[in-house]
């Protein structure tokens, strides 16, 4: 059987980093980066990753890519022969080209898309492929927050080879983060969970997984979600936050879940999906007791203020800090090692009250104490 792989390189990813611009999203910033003498680094990183593909020893491999600097040049530089598809305006590529490339490759039916870029590139690809086909990123951006990347370019190539050879079979859902680069340039990190893509589950070579051959993330998630589903109290309104860990609990209960939104449940029944702050406050007026169940977002460690703004200061105060249940997996907590949990509710006073230590449930009857700062 022929294996097909799609290669997309974002030639301008990471250009802002070296010249201190923290990212290259936005055309004026890119121009500024070039004026400051930035040279493209992403293509070189892509070549390093692609060189590993020569080690592939499986059946026939077809490599699909976009013209010139969007993959063709890098694939050839790595000593591989690509099938070039699509059209670009060389020297003036835009994010729409990434989207188009992902779309074409999806139509061709590639087994995996290997892309080189940053958080923005990942978002563009997610918009097209979602969780429909596996992807993996070669880290080429200047500061990457998404978890869909290998730990370095070489590892990316290695993981892809292992995947294509059938040595890594499992896929895992990994977070794609949406960073506000304008704010980041001003020293404010505003990251929000944008969505999930599926990446080959190779513990050692993919980001945010520092643990070795411990039980897989699936088993870990199963323990936590079973425990929470098992210990939900009667006659309490549960406000279920976003993210795949919370979804695990909803799956155990057999309730439809909004991955990137907030849902309400009561006595194991769905009250409402994907609610906004107003709706939550309305329901809080109807029920005597409520609890919030949230998870830790990706490698960031955010509890509030990233991707769950519906859980506003008003909502949190009404529910009460003591009624916040935080759930996660051990691996996720260990990937934060040395970093605290973060809160950014937009209300300084509330942030201060949330600071200190929080208990995070990480297994069946197992939890950890973690520092929280704002």
């Amino acid at each position, binding site marked *: 059987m022929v294996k097909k792989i799609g290669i997309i390189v974002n030639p301008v990813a990471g250009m802002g980093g070296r010249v201190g611009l923290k990212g290259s999203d936005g055309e004026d910033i890119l121009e500024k980066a070039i004026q400051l003498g930035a040279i493209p680094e992403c293509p070189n990183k892509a070549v390093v990753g692609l060189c590993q593909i020569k080690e592939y020893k499986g059946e026939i491999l077809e490599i699909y890519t976009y013209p010139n600097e969007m993959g063709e040049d890098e694939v050839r530089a790595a000593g591989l022969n690509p099938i070039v598809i699509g059209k670009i305006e060389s020297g003036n590529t835009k994010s729409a080209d990434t989207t188009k490339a992902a779309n074409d490759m999806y139509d061709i039916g590639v087994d995996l898309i290997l892309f080189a870029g940053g958080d923005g590139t990942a978002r563009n690809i997610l918009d097209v492929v979602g969780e429909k086909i596996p992807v993996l990123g070669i880290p080429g951006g200047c500061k990457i927050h998404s978890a869909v990347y290998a730990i370095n370019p070489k590892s990316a190539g290695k993981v892809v080879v292992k995947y294509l050879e059938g040595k890594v079979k499992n896929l895992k859902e990994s977070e794609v983060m949406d960073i506000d680069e304008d704010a980041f340039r001003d020293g404010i990190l505003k990251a929000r969970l944008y969505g999930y893509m599926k990446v080959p589950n190779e513990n050692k070579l993919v980001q945010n997984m520092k643990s070795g051959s411990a039980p897989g993330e699936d088993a870990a998630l199963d323990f936590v979600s079973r425990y929470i589903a098992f210990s939900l109290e009667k006659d309490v309104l549960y406000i279920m936050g976003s993210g795949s860990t919370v979804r695990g609990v909803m799956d155990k209960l057999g309730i439809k879940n909004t991955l990137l939104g907030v849902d309400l449940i009561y006595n194991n029944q769905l009250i409402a999906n994907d609610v906004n702050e107003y709706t939550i406050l309305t329901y809080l007026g109807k029920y005597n007791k409520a609890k919030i169940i949230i998870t830790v977002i990706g490698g960031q460690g955010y509890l509030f203020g990233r991707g769950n703004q519906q859980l506003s200061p008003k909502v949190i105060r009404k529910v009460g800090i003591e009624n916040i249940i935080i759930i996660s997996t051990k691996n996720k907590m260990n990937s934060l090692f040395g970093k605290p949990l973060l809160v950014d509710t937009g209300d300084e006073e509330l942030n201060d009250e949330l600071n200190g230590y929080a208990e995070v449930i990480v297994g069946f009857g197992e*939890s950890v104490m973690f520092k929280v700062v704002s």
Partner: protein
Amino acid sequence: MSKAYIRKNFHEARWDEPMIYELSTRKTRGILVPEVEDEIIAEVGDVASYLPENVKRKTPLLLPEVDQKHVLAHYIHLTQETMGANVSNDLSEGTCTMKYNPRLNEALSLNNNFAELHPSQDIETVQGILEIFYKFEDIMKEISGMDKFSFQPGGGNQAVYCAASVMRAYHESRNDTKRDTIITTIFSHPCDAAAPATAGYKVITLYPDEKGVPDYEALKVAVENIGDHLAGIFMTNPEDIGIYNSNVDRFSELVHSVGGLCYYDQANANAFLGVVRAREAGFDMCHFNVHKTFGTPHGGEGPACGAFGCREFLNKFLPKPTVEFDGKKYYLDFDRPESIGKVRAYFGSSGVILRAYSWTMMHGAEGLKEVAAVSVINNNYLEKLLLSIKGCGEAYLGNGITRQEQCRYSWEELFQDTGVGTDDINKRINDYGIPWYWASHHPWVIPQPMTLEPCETYSKCDLEEYFETLKIVAEEAYTNPEIVLSAPHRSASHDIANPEDLNDPAKWALTWRAFLKKHGDQYVKVK
């Protein structure tokens, strides 16, 4: 000038040895047992008829059928394919306290006067070994400050389980039945979380502060949150990363203040023998891994013993029987109505106690202190050497705290630079005759970890051999990473083909029968 010898031309035996079941040929026998003589049959009839029907097998026992010569060859081959304790530079096994096991103690345990004893014998006939149990208990009491010991637990984990059971029995005896949660720390041995969890407790784990010491502020919040549900704390000190928590007495004080009990896992006691005691640190219970710290063979090479000790107020809950002395003779006390019962058959692994008693008496009180001192000096010497290797760091590097008897190193820098990680280095050192080292318990908290524990029995040359070998391998990672990534080249067996299969219970096979069941269709018979 170092006299360290680097085994650059090492090669381990590789026998490509089949499984014993694959050597099996139907009706082959190692020993032909004589037929029962007619007179005996006439006298006793069919021996099997004495067995009740419900204990008789319905199908024949599936055992390999192999002759003596091939059984002997098979197992000798397997022993040659290991780098066992006492014959190699096995300071590799951090947290395991691998030290030399004096031959004299092995000779003692093989002596017929001891080896032929059976724990079911009348106590009048085993006064000698009971005396050794009793006297070794006195030694344990003195080293720890506890008032009473049981040697029944068959290892450290079982001692911790025993402690969780005693903790519950104590709270229940006071009609305090809501205490369902225990606290531990992330770098304590994982059994401090796992054993209480097995006993039914909820577990809250504390992470360390920025210096790598268990975070007292986090403990305060946890204690407040748990309130009167707190049963107690289980902790190791120094922890498995080699850092001693000098606040430990404040921890025990705080837990006591809300009615909890304190358990000291002394798996890492080699750091403090004769220097600090569980009692002075405020603990109510503790255990020693006798098979590690007190010089008896460890792991696959011999049985274990988790000596479990407690203060007088918990004595009545200890497993039964205990070994006692009435002034004239030694006896077993089964009359302990509040005991948690038995955690294991009989009253302890006597081979371990005999060797450990002999080992301790050889050292004397001052000798024990010296054991701790030399272990710590060895570790600090090795630490200074290893941190000079490019790519090698350690957990909480530069925190200003002197490491105790072991260190958790990190190859993260080397991994980032070269793509060669700790698992790869671990395989490559085999090519230089060094056994596999202990990376870390799971899940890894410190990235690319390596935990080494150079006990008191290793010489300066041993430490330098270890350092020089790791230095060579780290240099190879920078100059010729492929040779490390494809290692081992000179050891008994190659790498695991698909390591991720280890995460898949559908593929595990712990017995031959399970193997045939799960993989029989892909298995090509040797014969």
